């Protein structure tokens, strides 16, 4: 059986009477990229800290790479980019990596090649001898990623890895995460940037007020794809459109639900060939942002689940 990267059941954390995490059920398979979403204060960072043993659980169960939470042997195979972090400003990028290689017990002979690999990956190869104190926030975040990827870990936990990056940097991070995944690394991505998560993650877990309120693959969460067309001048016989999917009228729109999104241009061409005048086309699949706002606001309206 393949080892799960992360497995938690009803994981809970309370600081005195304040509940930071009510109940977290989280599964991340080997080599899987899972997005952990939630509004500020939902308990995401607490969840990450619990997984790494930085804080102690108040209840529930959890295992990382098949070992109990905080286990040192498991931590040897985890890379971590904290949300709020600063590396030693008086060290160079190379020295920061050397420090973490030393703490992680990365064998000496492997270190130089690993430094070249991760610095090349994050685009800092030509700044390796510069002091971190002179780095921009974005460059520090890149260095943080390099540190997290050091030693080819089995699991990488990234807490807001793109918050300080420009669009080019974000695109780079997407490539880095895909590269890590192609090497078989599992990634837990904690991010506010829903577009990032939508593009990268195999599965998504949405946390609100310390509990999981939605979880699944993007397909499962966002539902089936559809297309809605605002059109006039169509004949009564709509049979040429029948092969694309079931037809319906929705608030003055012609809807085909479900539809193969790849065939939407073909649908529009058929409508036009039938004499219809197309005013608007709306790929009607719910976005992750819409789903996120729905579950979070729904939770707020409905009180604590």
């Amino acid at each position: 059986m393949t080892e799960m990267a992360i497995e938690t059941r009803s994981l809970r954390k309370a600081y005195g009477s304040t509940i930071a995490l009510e109940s977290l059920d989280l599964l991340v398979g080997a080599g899987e990229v899972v997005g952990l979403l939630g509004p500020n204060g939902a308990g995401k960072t607490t969840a990450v800290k619990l997984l790494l043993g930085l804080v102690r659980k108040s209840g529930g169960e959890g295992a990382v790479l098949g070992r109990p939470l905080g286990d040192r042997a498991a931590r040897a195979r985890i890379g971590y980019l904290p949300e709020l972090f600063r590396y030693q400003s008086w060290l160079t990028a190379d020295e920061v990596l050397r420090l973490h290689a030393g703490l992680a017990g990365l064998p000496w002979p492997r270190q130089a090649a690993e430094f070249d690999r991760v610095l090349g990956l994050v685009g800092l190869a030509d700044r390796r001898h510069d002091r971190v104190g002179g780095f921009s926030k974005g460059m520090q975040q890149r260095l943080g990623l390099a540190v997290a990827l050091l030693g080819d870990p089995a699991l990488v936990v990234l807490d807001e890895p793109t918050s300080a990056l420009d669009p080019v940097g974000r695109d780079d991070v997407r490539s880095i995460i895909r590269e890590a995944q192609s090497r078989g690394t599992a990634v837990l991505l904690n991010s506010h940037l829903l577009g990032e998560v939508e593009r990268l993650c195999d599965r998504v877990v949405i946390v609100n007020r310390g509990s999981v309120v939605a979880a699944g693959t993007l397909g499962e969460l966002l539902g089936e794809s559809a297309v809605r067309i605002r059109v006039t001048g169509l004949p009564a016989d709509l049979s040429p459109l029948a092969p694309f999917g079931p037809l319906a009228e929705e608030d003055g729109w012609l809807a085909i639900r479900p539809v193969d999104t790849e065939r939407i241009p073909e649908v529009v061409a058929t409508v036009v060939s039938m004499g219809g005048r197309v005013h608007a086309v709306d790929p009607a699949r719910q976005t992750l942002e819409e789903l996120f706002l729905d579950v979070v606001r729904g939770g707020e309206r409905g009180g604590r689940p």
Partner: protein
Amino acid sequence: MNPRIVLVVAQLTIREITRRRILWVLAVLSLASVALVGWGVDRMVSLSRENGVNAYELEIAVSQILILIAFMFSFVLAMSAAFLSAPAIASDVETGTVLAMVARPMHRADLVVGRWLGLALIVSVYAAGSGLLAIGVVRFISDYTPPSTALALAFLAFQAVAVMTLALALGTRLPGIAAGAVTVVLFGLGWFTGVLGSLSNAFGVRSMAGLGDAFRLLMPTDGLWRGVIYGLEPSQVVIATQQGGRLAASNPFFADAPPPMAFTVWCAVWIVLVLALGAWLFQRREL
């Protein structure tokens, strides 16, 4: 505990302090102080000789000045040790630097002990170096050589390491400034109760003397300071002060004997216990 990781952290600590300006500022200030002291002693010795003061009296005077210089150094050293080591872990926690480090496969105690090792080396080298320089300058100017330079320097470093250990341990739980301030207050109280204890002993006030002894066990820096004094004062001063009655014996800049071996061993145990307490507090801390 993992010795390899302890050494990695110790190396990091030494690099951190030597790359920051603070150590060099302290070094320059120490050199300036030594130069000033040298000039002052030189003037005092030259002018006193012109006034017919004999060599014996001068030796006594210079030894007392040297003890006061050592006191100033021990104070500066204790403050520096407190404010260098209090933020060693505390500021790493505040900036989040510590998160990525302790998420590595290490015991948190490795971080505490590694920090301690690096700081202890720096503080000891600084204590020995600055102390030796001051004693060397005084010797060059006045020909006075303390009876036991090595003993005095060892106790000076021992005292600074004790202060450093306390500040580091407090910094595992308190913010850096608070840990530094508490350490300085305890150091000051240690000296005060030491003086009070000596007076109480000299005047036979047993209850107060007992209280002073108890506090000396809890905060042993003043006891270690007595070792510095003993190493610096000539035997004539010891004899003269012993003959000078109880008021002379209660002088806070006089010691009629080195700290007992049992007390010195206790100080080493105290350092280990305080360090272990710091490691335990840090292990329990939610980051």
